[in-house]
């Protein structure tokens, strides 16, 4: 199997940690994986994105022009990376910041996740990224949801381990949204 994706958004939306968790989940499943972050120059603000490649064979390029999947957390990221997704690929959109009408790409599967609403349901709007990640994994099947949740332990700094439960709930909620459509 081979899967690659770009995860993109504002600095501060937690896109880097999403990429990390996905990568750790893949490692748990004994897959090969590379993770490549790209930062803007500014310390705060600006855009941030990362690329995760998962495969069961040795991985060549850690950077990808045309990914199988893109997870976009805001409008500029959609505009930049949406058109790059491969035909038949998956585009996961943070519907809380991207108006529905902007998402018009032919030949892609699209998944709009109302992340903020779902995160608030779980208890904290800052969990939006985990909701989206849960949804993306559920939809793409790149790793098991179970592995994704377990990956929180190695991926998060020990300081944040007390919040792992909440994060798991948020992932579940995202996955559930894919399953049930709401």
């Amino acid at each position, binding site marked *: 199997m081979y899967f690659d994706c770009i995860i993109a958004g504002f600095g501060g939306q937690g896109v880097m940690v999403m990429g990390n968790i996905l990568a750790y989940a893949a490692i748990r499943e004994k897959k090969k994986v590379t993770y490549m972050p790209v930062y803007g120059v500014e310390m705060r603000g600006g855009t941030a994105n990362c690329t995760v490649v998962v495969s069961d064979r*040795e991985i060549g390029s850690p950077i990808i022009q045309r990914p199988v999947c893109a997870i976009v957390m805001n409008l500029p990221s959609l505009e930049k990376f949406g058109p790059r997704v491969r035909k038949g690929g998956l585009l996961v959109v943070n519907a809380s910041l991207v108006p529905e009408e902007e998402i018009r790409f032919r030949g892609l599967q699209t998944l709009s996740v109302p992340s903020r609403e779902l995160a608030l349901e779980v208890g904290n709007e800052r969990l939006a990224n985990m909701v989206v990640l849960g949804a993306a994994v559920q939809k793409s099947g790149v790793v098991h949801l179970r592995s994704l949740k377990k990956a929180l332990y190695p991926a998060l700094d020990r300081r944040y381990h007390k919040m792992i439960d909440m994060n798991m709930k948020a992932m579940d909620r995202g996955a559930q949204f894919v399953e049930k459509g709401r």
Partner: protein
Amino acid sequence: MAEIEFVKGNEAIAMGAIEAGCRFYFGYPITPQNDIPEYMSRHLPEVGGTFIQAESEIASINMMLGAGATGARAMTSSSSPGISLKQEGISYMCGSQIPGVIINMSRSGPGLGGISPSQGDYFQATRGGGHGDYRTIVLAPYSVQENYDLTMKAFDLADKYRNPVVVLGDALLGQMKEPLRRHKYRKKKGEKDWILTGAKGRSPRLLKSLYLSEGELTEHNWRLYRKYQRMKREIMYKVEFLEGAKLVVVAFGSVARILKSTVAMARDKGMKVGLFRPVTLYPFPYAALDKLSHKVRNFMAVELNTGQMVEDVKLAVGHKKNQVDFYGRPPGSIPSPDELLEEIKKVYNKRVKK
């Protein structure tokens, strides 16, 4: 999962260094390699080592020269502009035969340039950007695991040849994360009988690069030259997809990594393309390429610059009826596997399918 960690390239270098017994780090911050000093500042004290954030790159290389002269394993790291500033010091270390490891996680130049990956420092690293007729061994990793392994190796080579060793990575190799398998360092044997430790019970020792009596410096330079020749024993390279190849792509470091995908894609499309990756950039694997050139006619150098290593490829294979083509992406951006495939196709169609 115990032994496999998911690690940033820069950190892998720092981990490799500490594992190989590096106990002194001197550096000055510069993007994109700050994870190295940051890791060192946190972890060297745990093993009784010393981390100094120097006032500049020049001070760093000279602190390393000082520590290296006492036999300590020492390292400095920086990125392109900072490495330029270290050139005088590197020349002195070569002249005085003091070992040390220099990491260049290079970025885009010239000048302040930008922080994207680049291979614009190939000449500087392989031909000695400083003055004089010296050389340093140059190792070019292309994965997080190699960052770790080759850094460890760099310390052994530096001691073995009493010469600085450069590890030439770039922003891509520093920033990417991959699983890393750490392994125990096996210490090479051998006493250092030239180090400065105070002349207790022996006559004084001296480490210097100044030779003024008639003929002395020429002799010294011949000695160094013979040493550089001996370094050829350390030549390393990797090949892939060579079976029946009609076109061999030659590339190192990050772009070789990207090309791994490209060449696989080309093979999928039925193109007989192989990949030759020098791991030691100095000494360069001339002989291996030369040998290959008896079987393969067409070579293509690919670099993240407008043409540097290609000269070495030409020097290796250009004397026969071989073709050496070149694709270069100047510093400032990185080509994707697909873009590179297009470039390879052009050459393949011209040379092989003609």
